């Protein structure tokens, strides 16, 4: 099985070369038969990569320690779920997952791209094949997971204990679906540049792929944030760690792409810019892969540091980013510029959105790369953390968030800010109310906290206003209103949901940072502590034995008003003997949308234990908002208008649905 997987991987590499060269020449010579090679080859390449991945996963599941990769990252006593997720809990396996998803997207284009123009389809598959070829070669040359050991060790060295968590099953696959999903947008852009032709139907093709990638990337980042929050035991949800930034930059650029693609599809404007953004977004994904995989940074994600790998990925990075940008410089002038529009219009608002988002991406890029550049040039080591991003990223985001509710209410071509403002009066009043209530009645609320809460309420109310206005609330009879509401295009719901989710995330962040409380103290069994109105009793430390670890579990009781326990929380120190590593399992109790968070420290000589407690009001909204954003993207994807070849019902729908905003 293992050798089959290895062989399949080599074959997939060979096929990716075929996929690169044959359709490309076919498109150039306008030879249908050569172009038609791309599709079946892409599907076969995916099948082979899947076979290869399955071979590795089954080696992990059966604890085949004759594979060096399994020996280094698995243990026979691990629960089955961590044996399987361990497949991508290491450098080699995660790169295999990367190409698996890459070929999966290529196969999707091959399968669903039958109504694409033949040359465009061939060129897209060729570019996709080229990316695949580079990464297959990378895996085979520097990161082969199928290397055997002889003699085979009897026992493995265990998966990094921090990774022995359900988060590993969800976070990397989601993140990679997002990262790699943008490769399709990239391939479409490069294909358009190769052809020297781009039109609105191109945008109609690219938008769903952008939405899919963006949806998964949102989920991956939210999941990663929640995982870091409960696993690391520091109570933080975002650390501005370079590795986090590596995934955040494609998200910001992807969000900009999502918006500019709308303008291109609807109004045939911003063509060249959209193309460039698609290239930049995937370039940032590649940069992220480089930062995380090369060992330039030390973090949980940098599994192994092998300089040849870093150099190899850097070459791939230079080839694809440099190549695509050079092509852009040569060909972009051939593409016709799009239509003109008034600055105050939906297009204008989306341009502003792009200006803010790309500038914000640039500040994150500078903050992430500057320390690396400075160290390489001068040897000085600096760290750029939250204080830097608070000062740069913050001021860029606040005005952007403030204008979000206006965007969907402005008409295309020429909008009316005054009319939009009038419609937003109710939302504004709500936001103002929230500011006043927070500022006046909540203890310890700073001006910033009050304004932050107000901004979040403004976003949520603004998103709801958009739906209300478009279904004609207040201007038509209720029966008409409900019919209109039900008939609104799915993409309108998508926009509203995504903006609503953004507001919820902001609300969670502001509430947690402003009103969260924290205590560090030493406790003995039987002692109680109060935190923001919640009383906790420390029951004691209980040693227990897990499958591949031993732990000291500290049990706490949440005491109700009557004085009797109403709930239990436990936090543990886990010791993994194979790796001689200790981890902290935080204890979390969700109360409504808020959480009590306990992290257990070391035991003192006198038997007392250091305990760190947090009260995190509305903290779950941070990730809940991410889920709502994902739902918004899914809703938009269901919009009939995004499906090429289903235009007939669209006119009828649009004309009955939204006379206000849709042209």
């Amino acid at each position, binding site marked *: 099985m293992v050798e089959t997987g290895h062989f399949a991987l080599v074959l997939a590499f060979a096929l990716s070369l075929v996929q690169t060269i044959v359709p490309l020449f076919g498109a150039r010579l306008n030879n249908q038969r050569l172009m038609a090679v791309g599709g079946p080859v892409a599907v076969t390449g995916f099948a082979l990569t899947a076979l290869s991945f399955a071979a590795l996963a089954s080696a992990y599941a059966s604890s085949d320690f004759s594979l060096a990769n399994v020996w280094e990252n698995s243990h026979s006593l691990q629960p089955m779920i961590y044996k399987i997720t361990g497949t991508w809990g290491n450098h080699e396996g995660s790169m295999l997952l990367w190409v698996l998803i890459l070929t999966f997207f290529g196969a999707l284009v091959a399968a669903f791209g039958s109504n694409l123009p033949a040359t465009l389809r061939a060129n897209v598959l060729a570019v996709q094949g080229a990316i695949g070829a580079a990464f297959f070669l990378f895996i085979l040359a520097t990161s082969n997971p199928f290397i055997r050991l002889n003699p085979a060790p009897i026992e493995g060295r265990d998966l990094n204990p921090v990774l022995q968590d359900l988060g590993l099953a969800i976070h990397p696959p989601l993140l990679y679906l997002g990262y790699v999903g943008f490769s399709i947008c990239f391939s479409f852009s490069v294909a358009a540049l190769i052809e020297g032709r781009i039109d609105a139907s191109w945008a109609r093709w690219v938008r769903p792929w952008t939405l899919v990638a963006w949806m998964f990337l949102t989920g991956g980042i939210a999941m990663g944030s929640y995982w870091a929050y409960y696993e690391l035991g520091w109570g933080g949800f975002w650390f501005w760690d370079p590795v986090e930034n590596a995934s955040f930059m494609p998200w910001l650029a992807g969000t900009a792409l999502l918006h500019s693609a709308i303008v291109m599809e609807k109004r045939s404007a911003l063509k060249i810019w959209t193309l460039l953004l698609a290239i930049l977004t995937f370039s940032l994904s590649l940069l992220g892969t480089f930062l995380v995989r090369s060992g330039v940074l*030390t973090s949980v994600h940098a599994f192994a540091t092998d300089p040849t790998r870093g150099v190899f990925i850097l070459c791939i990075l230079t080839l694809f980013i440099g190549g695509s940008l050079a092509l852009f410089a040569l060909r972009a002038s051939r593409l016709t510029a799009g239509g003109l529009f008034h600055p105050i219009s939906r297009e204008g608002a989306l341009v502003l959105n792009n200006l803010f988002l790309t500038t914000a991406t640039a500040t994150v890029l*500078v*903050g992430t790369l500057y320390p690396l550049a400075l160290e390489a040039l001068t040897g*000085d080591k600096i760290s*750029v953390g939250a204080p*830097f991003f608070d000062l740069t990223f913050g001021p860029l985001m606040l005005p952007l968030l403030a204008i979000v509710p206006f965007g969907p209410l402005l008409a295309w071509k020429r909008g009316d800010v005054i009319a939009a403002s009038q419609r937003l009066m109710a939302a504004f009043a709500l936001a103002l109310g929230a500011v006043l209530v927070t500022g006046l009645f909540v203890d310890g609320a700073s001006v910033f906290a009050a304004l932050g809460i107000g901004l979040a309420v403004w976003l949520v109310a603004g998103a709801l206003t958009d739906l209300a206005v478009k279904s004609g609330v207040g201007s038509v009879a209720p029966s008409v209103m409900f019919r209109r509401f039900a008939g609104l295009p799915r993409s309108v719901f998508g926009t509203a949901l995504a903006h609503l989710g953004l507001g919820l995330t902001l609300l969670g962040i502001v509430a947690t940072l402003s009103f969260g409380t924290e205590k560090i103290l030493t406790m003995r069994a039987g002692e109680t502590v109060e935190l923001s109105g919640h009383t906790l009793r420390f029951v004691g430390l209980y040693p227990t034995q897990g499958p591949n670890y031993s732990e000291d579990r500290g049990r706490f009781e949440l005491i109700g008003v009557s004085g009797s326990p109403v709930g239990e929380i436990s936090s543990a120190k886990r010791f993994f003997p194979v790796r001689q*590593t*200790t981890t*902290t399992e935080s204890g979390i109790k969700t109360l409504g949308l808020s959480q009590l968070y306990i992290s257990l*420290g070391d035991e003192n000589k006198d038997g007392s234990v250091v305990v760190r407690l947090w009260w995190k009001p509305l903290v779950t909204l941070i990730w809940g908002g991410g889920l709502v954003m994902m739902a918004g993207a899914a809703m938009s994807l269901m919009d009939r208008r995004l499906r090429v070849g289903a235009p007939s019902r669209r006119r009828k729908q649009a004309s009955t649905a939204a006379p206000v905003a849709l042209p």
Partner: protein
Amino acid sequence: MTRKQKRLSVIAGGLAFLGAATGLTFYALGQKASYFYMPADLTTASVQPGQRIRLGGLVEKGTIQRGQGATVAFSVTDTHKSVKVTYTGILPDLFREEQGVITEGTFGPDGVFVADSVLAKHDERYMPKEVADGLKAKGVWQESKSD
């Protein structure tokens, strides 16, 4: 305004915006980035009390004192010099004697480094990269036991 003037004003506005963002970014890099030092570097570098820095090195053997409550004192050393550090909170799981550590905080007026965060990163050798590089530069790096 003519169309050309309009377009120019839009471009000028965009450039002014980018200029402001660039200025802010470089100001923030100057003000908010914290430099990394090893204890021996501190004799030559002028670090003011209250200036935020990162101090890295090895946790000196036998210096960990768990005092009252959750405050811990220990010394960070690069084998040439050592600096006393205090920290209130929960030490990371990988914190141990003679292992690499990075602390972030400020010097108090008494010359004791008050850390508000302590990092002992998850690296194969339990050695943060900055500390390993620093020790190599000082010639006291030992290729540690590979397991």
